[in-house]
């Protein structure tokens, strides 16, 4: 249910996560320049930024929805679509690139029949690319569900992702 001017602040769905988001905004005194911090928190709570959520934030921070949407779409970190249950990030930074990151990506794309930036139809796996994770010393690097794995080969990354899909870690 979309937020309208008539039902501000407390979200009608009764979803507890909104209360936590509300606390964050309060901490920043609903200042409009805290928008990025609030979006970070919202994405952490909800996993991605739904339109309804963006409107809610716009309303709370007294910003035009266009501004909130503009910021949310400008930064790569924010996702407006639901992600898969698991994510695999392949670093395409320079160090990883010269160590064959493109191969890792192609292998994963072929194995799971999805392209970078897509989520598998069953909603299990999202394949993402990144611009340097700061783990160049152990290039090529990937991140599987938040864990950075270095010195990857096509075989090791396939089995690592499989492990994650099969066992959830």
């Amino acid at each position, binding site marked *: 249910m979309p937020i309208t001017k008539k039902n501000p602040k407390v979200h009608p769905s009764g979803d507890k996560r909104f209360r936590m988001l509300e606390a964050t905004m309060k901490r920043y005194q609903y*200042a*409009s*320049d*805290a*928008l*990025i*911090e609030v*979006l*970070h928190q919202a994405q952490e709570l909800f996993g991605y930024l739904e339109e309804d959520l963006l409107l809610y934030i716009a309303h709370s921070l007294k910003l035009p929805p266009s*501004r909130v949407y*503009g*910021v949310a779409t*400008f*930064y*790569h*970190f*924010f996702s407006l679509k639901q992600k898969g249950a698991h994510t695999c990030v392949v670093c*395409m*930074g*320079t*160090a990883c*690139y*010269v*160590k064959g990151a493109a191969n890792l990506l192609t292998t994963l794309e072929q194995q799971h029949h999805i392209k970078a930036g897509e989520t598998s139809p069953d909603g299990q796996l999202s394949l993402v690319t*990144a*611009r*340097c*994770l*700061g*783990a*160049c*010393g*152990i*290039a090529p*690097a990937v991140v599987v569900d938040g*864990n*950075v*794995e*270095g010195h990857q080969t096509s075989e090791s990354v396939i089995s690592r992702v499989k492990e994650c899909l099969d066992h959830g870690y």
Partner: protein
Amino acid sequence: MDIEELNAIAQRENQKQQKTCIRCCTVGGCLSANGLAVKEHLEEAVTAAGLGGKVSVAGVGCMGLCSQGPLVRVDPEGTLYDRVTTDNASEIVASLSNNVSAMDELSLKTYPASQYQPHNHPFFTRQLKIVLENSGKIDPENIEEYIGADGYQGLYKVLREMTPESVVETITRSGLRGRGGAGYPTGLKWATVAKVGETPRSVPQKFVICNADEGDPGAFMDRSVLESDPHRVIEGMAIAAYAVGANQGYIYVRGEYPLAINHLQTAIRQAKRLGLLGSQIFESPFDFKIDLRIGAGAFVCGEETALMASIEGKRGIPRPRPPYPAESGLWGCPTLINNVETFANVPTIIRKGADWFSNIGTETSKGTKVFSLAGKVCNTGLIEVPMGTTLQQIVEEMGGGVPDGGKAKAVQTGGPSGGCIPAAAFDTPVDYESLTKLGSIMGSGGAIVMDESTNMVDVARFFMEFCMDESCGKCVPCRAGTVQLYQLLTKIREGKADLTDLEKLEELCHMVKYTSLCGLGQSAPNPVFSTLRYFRDEYLGLIST
């Protein structure tokens, strides 16, 4: 907090240092290689060997040799162990207990120390550590260990013994230049911000910002400094704030660096608790507060005006300069913005003096530079060398050359704004001017080694794709130009281009360079220029005639 308390903490810490300590890297690459589990196993092994009272185990920051992690060093001897596994932990402790308690007659095969010993391997011996002096030595989550390493002495000195003018003067005399890329003289920047509002009646609000966005792919120096020694950056910022008359600071750190964010939060909290941040620091009239701002994944936000827009909660879009941030920055107020490594140099310069610092390095570039050595090279990791060290020494001696007997072809520095330096020019001493002359830039310090298997047109295309994706879209030359350049490079790469395409490529490069609004567009053609300059053959080889 006063100086007696500070010294008391330092003394207590230094007494602790006398004991045998097993230090285990628990940040960066070593963390990914299971460093935390290794540390836990070491702790268990120490307890099991009954050495609890004699030997301590500590988690520390980056020791530099990231590719060989997890790294463990036994101090005070300084023996280094690489690629330690949880199984090896007890062997390291066993080899130690032979020394610690002579009566122990363990028949255990002792675990072999690393071939890279800090006292004899060029990877370590060629280094001179200022910014990284505490990295890998102290626990980054413990402010007392930083204080034990002379931490916050510089801040005390400026607040109680120096005027803001003399601080600026010291930094100017040291010859320190910005480590964020362009190499602007730091003292001059500080002086400009300090001067604003000197005459009018009301002193304006000023800000100090630390640029920890580190967007260059292949660079991880700032990450490592923040993870390994966050207090150094905080102290540097506080000294800068005193010098320019600011009382609020921001650290803008990449969202991709969760551990750096975590360590910074801890460090700020601890500094506040000890009264090293907050009001009336060291019982002086100086107040200073630092807040963190987390980036959200946009390369252009490393550019200073875009970064400030981002702190204000807006899209990270640059604006034309002037006005420079020094006059009109964050929320229109005078703002000092420096890179992480720039700030990290400051406490040591204050403690050891401008002359000490300016004795290191070359005529125009003083001090040291941290490089992240990566790519096709044996020893990848972080190194800090005096300015003027040659690429040959960095790549071949410290880096150990290309693995499997390969040959280095080029080193890429400066990320997407930089260029590729061919092996023939490896004897050039590295400083700001010499790299610019070679058609690259110092940049933030990423140094990526490429070997014979790397195709240079691919490299140019790779960086152009990066700039195309990261262009904020505000100005046409950058938004549309990078797309055209990318398509031209693709056409060349696929062998479908002819000589007129090559001409078009060069012409368009010049256009984008001279007409773009910000540094991103202005420098986007650099990788193309430098590969054309040194590796034109590879382009010509792909051209159909």
